[in-house]
């Protein structure tokens, strides 16, 4: 082994890893070679420093706090995992919507229902306008505040598009039927008499449907007065019907 090879060996191997023959060779060589001896001394010094590093076990600043934070994190993760499994069913349900066909089908159903509902509302409004024209009701009276905005389509339309003729007509007509004075009512009933059976039935349906709505009772201060008037309307209607029958 040359001096260069030995020096490289000294830098890269640990003395304690040398076998007895290598140790003997090293001992003899160092006695004769001053350069290798200096390097051996340097390596020995380096090893002593490394030994000190080895002995200096790094200390955790706060062992207890570190353990606590690890356990707290684990418990927190476990809890969130438990919550996640509880939501698994909901997740699965939501995941169904990741299928294109399901999304399309649901969208179509919602669109169809919405369109049907709007079409029905449109028809209602159309018949109201037609009734209103036939009954000769004037647009001089508006108590739209008794209709809860946004609850039904006409209410919504009135709320956001106040100039919508259909919604305005619906609201005004229903209000008028409820709140009109007795003399006005008599005039209306005279017109009512002239209506054919189908139109009359339609008018009654509209009026009853509106009066049955619970929100009207909850949101109208003069509900009792309305109720009295309604009873009066019913009575007068019956009178008209009876006279109509007698005439027949």
């Amino acid at each position, binding site marked *: 082994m040359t001096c260069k090879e030995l020096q490289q060996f000294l830098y*890269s191997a640990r003395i304690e890893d040398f076998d007895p023959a290598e140790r003997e060779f090293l001992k003899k060589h160092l006695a004769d070679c001053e350069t290798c001896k200096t390097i051996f001394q340097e390596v020995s010094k380096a090893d002593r*420093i490394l030994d000190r590093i*080895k002995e200096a*076990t*790094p200390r955790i600043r706060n062992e207890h706090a*570190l353990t606590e934070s690890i356990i707290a994190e684990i418990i927190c993760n476990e809890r969130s995992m438990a919550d996640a499994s509880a939501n698994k069913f909901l997740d699965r349900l939501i995941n169904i919507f990741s299928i294109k066909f399901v999304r399309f089908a649901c969208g179509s159903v919602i669109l169809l229902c919405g369109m049907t509902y709007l079409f029905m509302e449109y028809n209602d409004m159309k018949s109201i306008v037609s009734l209103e024209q036939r009954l000769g009701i004037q647009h001089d009276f508006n108590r739209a505040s008794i209709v809860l905005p946004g609850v039904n389509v006409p209410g919504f339309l009135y709320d956001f598009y106040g100039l919508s003729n259909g919604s305005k007509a619906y609201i005004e007509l229903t209000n008028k039927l409820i709140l009109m004075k007795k003399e006005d009512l008599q005039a209306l009933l005279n017109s009512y008499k002239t209506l054919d059976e189908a139109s009359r039935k339609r008018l009654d349906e509209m009026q009853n449907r509106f009066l049955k709505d619970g929100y009207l009772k909850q949101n109208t201060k003069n509900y009792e007065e309305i109720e009295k008037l309604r009873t009066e309307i019913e009575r007068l209607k019956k009178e008209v019907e009876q006279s109509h029958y007698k005439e027949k």
Partner: protein
Amino acid sequence: MQNNKPADVLVQLIEDAQKGDVTAFGKIVRDHQSYAYAIAFRFFCDEDDAEDVVQESFIRIWNHLQDFDSSMKFTTWMYKIVVNLCYDKAKSNKRRMSVFARLNDNSSQDDYIESTNIEQDLTNKETAALIKRIADGLSEKQRMIFLLRDIQDLTIEEVAGITGMSDSAIKTNLFFARQNIRKKLARLEVSI
């Protein structure tokens, strides 16, 4: 391997923890966190980074405790996780350029080392400064292998098991690391 806990007690604790006993796992953490911390601290030379790695390691151990192969030493498995997380964190730190900015800033540490008397017990700061100084210029792999073999005193087989490298690759890296470190230490002017 540095583990004073009797093997059967540890096995029992692991079994309990595998069944979901957090208290048993807490005992395992208490007994082993200092070993995990020693590796992480010597690798990063930073207390915050080391604590982050220890915390992350034990959370990962808990999550994968069911996969633990009882034919393997628990500490070897733990070291494997710690070492992998050290590499991951070093990568993310490198991205943020924080670790290397700190590693390159040696001026204050040099003064600190030169005024240190190594005969006294080294504090965390002193150890960090010394390791930073001598391991500068080594790759992460070489530094880790040197730490595991020469500072943690693990066998070549254990280092191979932890790092997943072959014996010959470990010896080659170790050869270069030792040569580099010893040359630096020989030139270092410290009183010993």
